[in-house]
């Protein structure tokens, strides 16, 4: 499976690059935000960090980058798109996922490890989980408070697009405890959690299976 990690000014994509090289042992390229053509890749990761210093709104400026055109095309072709933290914010700003994120309801940046419940396993990102399983994932953000209008929420619930929910504590005030959601076709995942860091933390946390699930999906599809 060929991975692309998108690099915007202010992104911290090296963590993802390292995980794909060292842990998944798959080919990975860093792709600069000025590129447009992503047709060479099976998985596109929008990493965490602070693209454009969060100026205007988190993700707002990066969502206007040339590379986002490539992301749209890839999403339409059913490629896997994973937005982590700031990458999720960019996907929201680009309209590739519904809703938005607000500043955390306690108005502070918050870093920690959070328990999360897996809600769906019928997605390319969650094949290696059981429904109802509780895993622990790192997070670090100031704007992670997911919000959408009631109709959108209803539609997300109905079409089973909510795939992770915060369990126990809700670290940012997200609506309905939403910790991760996919688009209608299920190939675009956005989450404020940091699964790439879960791999660095070692076994026993469970976050690494987001990556291995994608590999399994690739195998099923015959791309590896």
């Amino acid at each position: 499976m060929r991975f692309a990690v998108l690099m915007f000014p202010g992104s911290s994509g090296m963590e993802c690059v390292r995980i794909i090289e060292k842990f998944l042992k798959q080919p990975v390229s860093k792709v600069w935000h000025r590129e447009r053509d992503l047709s060479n890749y099976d998985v596109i990761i929008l990493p965490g960090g602070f693209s454009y210093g969060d100026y205007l709104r988190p993700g707002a400026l990066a969502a206007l980058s040339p590379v986002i055109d490539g992301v749209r095309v890839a999403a339409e072709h059913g490629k896997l798109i994973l937005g982590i933290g700031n990458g999720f914010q960019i996907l929201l700003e680009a309209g590739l996922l519904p809703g938005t994120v607000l500043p955390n309801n306690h108005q502070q940046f918050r870093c920690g490890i959070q328990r999360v419940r897996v809600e769906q396993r019928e997605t390319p990102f969650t094949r290696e989980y059981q429904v109802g399983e509780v895993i622990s994932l790192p997070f670090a953000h100031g704007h992670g408070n997911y919000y959408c209008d009631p109709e959108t929420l209803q539609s997300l619930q109905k079409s089973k697009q909510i795939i992770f929910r915060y369990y126990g504590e809700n670290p940012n005030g997200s609506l309905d405890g939403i910790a991760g959601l996919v688009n209608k076709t299920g190939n675009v995942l956005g989450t404020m959690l940091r699964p790439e860091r879960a791999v660095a933390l070692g076994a026993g946390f469970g976050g690494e299976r987001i990556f291995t699930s994608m590999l399994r999906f690739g195998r099923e599809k015959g791309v590896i």
Partner: protein
Amino acid sequence: MLSEQKQPFLEPTPEEICEKRLYQKMGMTTEEYEKVVQHLGRLPNWTETGIYSVMWSEHCSYKNSKALLRLFPTEGPQVLQGPGEGAGAIDIGDGQAVVFKIESHNHPSAVEPFQGAATGVGGIMRDVFSMGARPIALLNSLRFGSLDKEDVRHLLKQAVAGIGYYGNVIGVPTVGGEVVFDPVYNETPLVNAMCVGLLSHGDLQKGIAKGKGNRVIYIGASTGRDGIHGATFASEELSEDSEEMVPAVQAGDPFMGKRLMEACLELVQAQILVGIQDMGAAGLTSSSVEMAAKGESGILLNLDAVPQRDPEMTPYEMMLSESQERMLVIVEEKNVAEVHRICQKWEVQSVDIGEVTDDGTLTLIHKNKKVTSLPIKTLVNAPMVYREANEPAYYQSFATVDPVQELAGIEVEKAFYQVLSSPNVASKRWVYQQYDYMAQGATVVSPGSDAGVIAIEGTKKFLAVTTDGNGRYVYLDPKVGGAIAVAEAARNLVCTGAKPLAITDGLNFGSPEKPEIYWQMTGAIQGMQAACLTLETPVTGGNVSLYNETAGQAVYPTPIVGMVGLIDGPEKITTHSFKNEGDIILLLGNTLAELGGSELQQCITGQISGRPPQIDLEREKNVQKVVLEAIYSGWVQSAHDLSEGGLAVALAECCISGNRGAELAIKTDLSPLTFLFSESQSRVLLSVKVDHLEKVAQLAAAYQVPLTQLGRVGKSQVSVTVNGELLIDAPLCKLQQTWEGAIPWAMSSTSS
């Protein structure tokens, strides 16, 4: 101060500066001014006077402290770069080096805590990446007043948010630090930030300007009027007028900082730099002058080329501005285009603003006129100030105070909860959860432990890093307190399984003009010197912050030690949390009746007195050897340094973080209260498997360190019996609530 300076502003003539003594407003004494006139053989103009005043400020010249700083040992086989550059560097093997330094931003943080703290972080990071190193960790050391006060809560909230903002956006994890609260810091907080970076030996850079005709390239943000005279501001005590100094506080832009960092690191990799230096305190002035001084060169700057936020800026303003996120690099003419190319890639501006000369002179051109011509040697050789040291009266009167007697009769259990909920002892999660301590994905031991531990990519090595300081001990006995600061930092590292390598010192004191303060400085530095020598941890650089006073009231003398150690295998990483029920709990070291300056004394009486705990550095060294050898032998389940709050607090912390109870049965000649809360030095709380007990006992005996078996790790109850009397018996969750809830509770009384 200087606030009358609005456009259009006619600069005073050299004669006016002299006659009206305008130099005094820039923080310069008449003697210093006369020395300048003597050097030049003429009267300096406005710009030149400004340049001398900042170069000769304590912040840039160390004129008050240099004589003392010479006491520090700065050499060792591990030292690649000692003091004198942006940051020190130590060898960690395999061709790699660690670059690290601590810096204070106390004065700006007192006036504008968010930006003051944020730019403190930005500044120390630039010191590290200007050495060619990629920053991999941040730490801090903070002192605030009493959390009962609303303005103190505001300062804490804003400073923590500012530290988090800069570090989080730039993507470097804040992996450790300390926060201490004491009324002496009510009006005068201390904000010290430390950065640790990693590089290959060949990439080590220097801040040097040499080679006649080489170009001087300005990189980064444009120059504005912010921070003018920041270095001078930092060299005076705070007063009501300090609020007027707000323009002297710079604003930071971490997004700019990140692009600047990536551009600079790529310039380093391109191997085209002759020299590179951050425009930190005293901005363009200190960076150009210091680089030229090191290269024994001259430097010519064409100020019209300097990127300016306002085209009307004067030479004086440009030279004294402390606008953030700026660097100065020296390259050969043929490499200028490559510098521009790399900077463009990162969307950072780069401008050729001058050249290296061989005339030993700082020459400034503005609007085609030579506006400044100063001999560089005189700029970097400020007249030293020799201060008088006098033992303060309190030191004598404390000689007869017996804190043990003073605290006799206090009930142990009551004391336990009171100390555990003191903000100094309680969990600092409220603070560190606002920092992205896992950025870069290499953090192995998170904040809240004895030291932060980070993995070095591509190796089996880990760095352990810590900051430590105890102003109370230093106040009560500077020499002893100074030695303890170094010893405790080393002990913290050893408890994680690391071999301590070297330190950076952050020296925070009051006004050196007061003999009592200079006495504190002298003693503290002597104590640190002794400990550095015994523990073989040289000083590779640091920072001096004086005049930490408000309305004549100085803070405690607060030297901070930032220390770096190396762990050469994952199996050696040790934490303080109890691991398994049934493990044996051991106390390494000797407990004496030492409550002077203790957390117990402060909590119960609201003040400190007496003498602090004493320290025997040879014993300290042996204790550390026992702990390290035991860890290397695989006999240690947990190790925790005993510090504020003594055994009682260390025990609670091991239990809470391990989510395990404990059962202790102690026999002692001391009173139970004294034994549990004494802050005797050179002690470590260990837990070991039953099978390893004998081995550890033999090891301790070999180094003649006392070892006492205290009890066992339990399930969910913490009980402590002293001389047969059950004094503490509480469910773990109660300790947890007390310890974790204290700071959030104190902070919630503010409207957020």
